[in-house]
């Protein structure tokens, strides 16, 4: 039995008449990177929002370290979330704060680090992500790719136990994608952080994943190691991996 950090059991969620999640089962393993694949609009973001408690399921259970997330009391959830980092698909940067203040925010709130130490940490992360002279800028003054990287920096700054990346490389150039991939790998290997990554990037999936799960039709239809995925016989997965328009995946739902 592998060491599970997060266990999702039979998760159901509808918005009005639209059924988005229809019985998702997924286990996230400690110190490993789990990649969630799936078509645009299939419910990946909705799924991870359940993990942190932003959305409440209609049915099903989510366990973090064996504790029930769904009915967790507020103070306990706060403590739990301090162990999480989250990169939002939209960035969700605080637009009234500078880049430096954005990245420093979780450090200021949750650590006893001094101002100088925080400054140093921010500099170090920015440098690693190839960002220069942006500390004093506001998010509105950044390019899309820069925003994404600043948001990424904010998610990893605290070096939490679990980091959720919602499409970390979307909208970045290939070189930058590789830098982000390396950062995620380093995050796992050097800091032992458990990562959950949502992506559409097949190449990066095989580079970073210890485990891949494919979300389709509101369920996880295939789950396994990269090797198992390469040798899959599942038509849907094959169509997705080989970027084909023809196949079992319905374009119109």
């Amino acid at each position, binding site marked *: 039995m592998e060491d599970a950090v997060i266990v999702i059991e039979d998760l159901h969620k509808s918005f009005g008449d639209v059924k988005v999640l229809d019985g998702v089962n997924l286990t996230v393993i400690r110190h490993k990177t789990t990649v969630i694949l799936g078509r645009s609009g299939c419910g990946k973001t909705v799924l991870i929002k359940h993990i*942190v408690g932003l959305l409440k399921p209609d049915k099903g259970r989510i366990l973090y370290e064996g504790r029930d997330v769904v009915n967790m009391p*507020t103070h306990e959830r706060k403590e739990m979330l301090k162990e999480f980092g989250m990169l*939002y698909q939209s960035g*969700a940067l605080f*637009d009234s704060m500078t880049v430096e203040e954005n990245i420093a925010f*979780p450090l200021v709130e949750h650590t006893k680090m001094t101002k100088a130490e925080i400054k140093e940490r921010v500099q170090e992360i920015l440098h690693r992500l190839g960002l220069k002279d942006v500390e004093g800028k506001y998010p509105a003054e950044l390019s899309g790719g820069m925003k994404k990287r600043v948001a990424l920096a904010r998610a990893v700054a605290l070096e939490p136990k679990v980091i959720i990346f919602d499409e970390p490389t979307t909208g970045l150039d290939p070189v930058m994608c590789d830098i982000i991939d390396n950062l995620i790998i380093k995050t796992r290997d050097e800091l032992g952080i458990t990562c959950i990554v949502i992506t559409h990037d097949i190449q990066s999936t095989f580079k970073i994943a210890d485990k891949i799960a494919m979300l389709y039709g509101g369920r996880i239809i295939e789950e396994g190691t990269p090797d198992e995925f390469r040798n899959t016989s599942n038509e849907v997965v094959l169509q997705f991996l080989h970027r084909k328009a023809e196949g079992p995946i319905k374009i119109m739902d």
Partner: protein
Amino acid sequence: MDTMKKFQEKLLLFFDKLGATSSTFLSETGGIFINAIRGLYLAFVPPYRWRNLLKQMEFIGAQSTFIVGLTGLFTGMILAFQSSHAFRLFRAETLIGPTVALSLTRELAPVFTALLVTARAGSAMAAEIGTMRISEQIDAIFTMGIDPVQYIITPRLVASILMLPLLNALFTFLGLIGGHIISVNVVGVTSFAYWDQIFYYVTAEDYFNGFLKAAVFGYVISAICTHMGYNASGGAEGVGRATTHAVVVASVSIFIFDYLLTALMY
């Protein structure tokens, strides 16, 4: 028979709509109430974020001084002008001072100050918080293990409760100066008589009640405006809607609470 059925259907639809409206009205009122209580309660729970509070006090208070002061000055001048016509008939011009002062302390200063702050700071609160909601910044605060209500709403409530009485004092003071300018220079009352009569007729209670009203208005408008922004949805249009809604509801609420407080106080 057919028309009868159609009529019945229409009637049912009407009741449905009425029910929906009243239930949204009730749930919204309840939401604002809960927001007000929870937001203020969290002011007494650590962590205390003094920087956020100071920033809001600066925005709601310091940056409102000019328009509040200017409006106060002109309000006092207008009051003195208008009342001078009546008092001249009775040769009771020295009563202009107390008239201006009582109107200001009891009613006009707190109400006008609250309306001005709603227009200036209340709308900004709703728009800013609404934008934070739709761009997932509030979600981001939540997932960092920070209570977004405590981080965003609490400082605005506290700052409003603290700053409104001060702005009210400024409004009253400049209103009295405005009244003085007109009484002395236009009507011909002596400066001594103007102030003397004010001190004679206006009690400490009048001033105190004015401050109390201002503080309550500050609480009410900030609770409404933050609530509207916090629950905004539907993109840029939704933020616009929340802002308009916030200003309208807050303005009307000022008068409703003014009536309630006046009935209780006097």
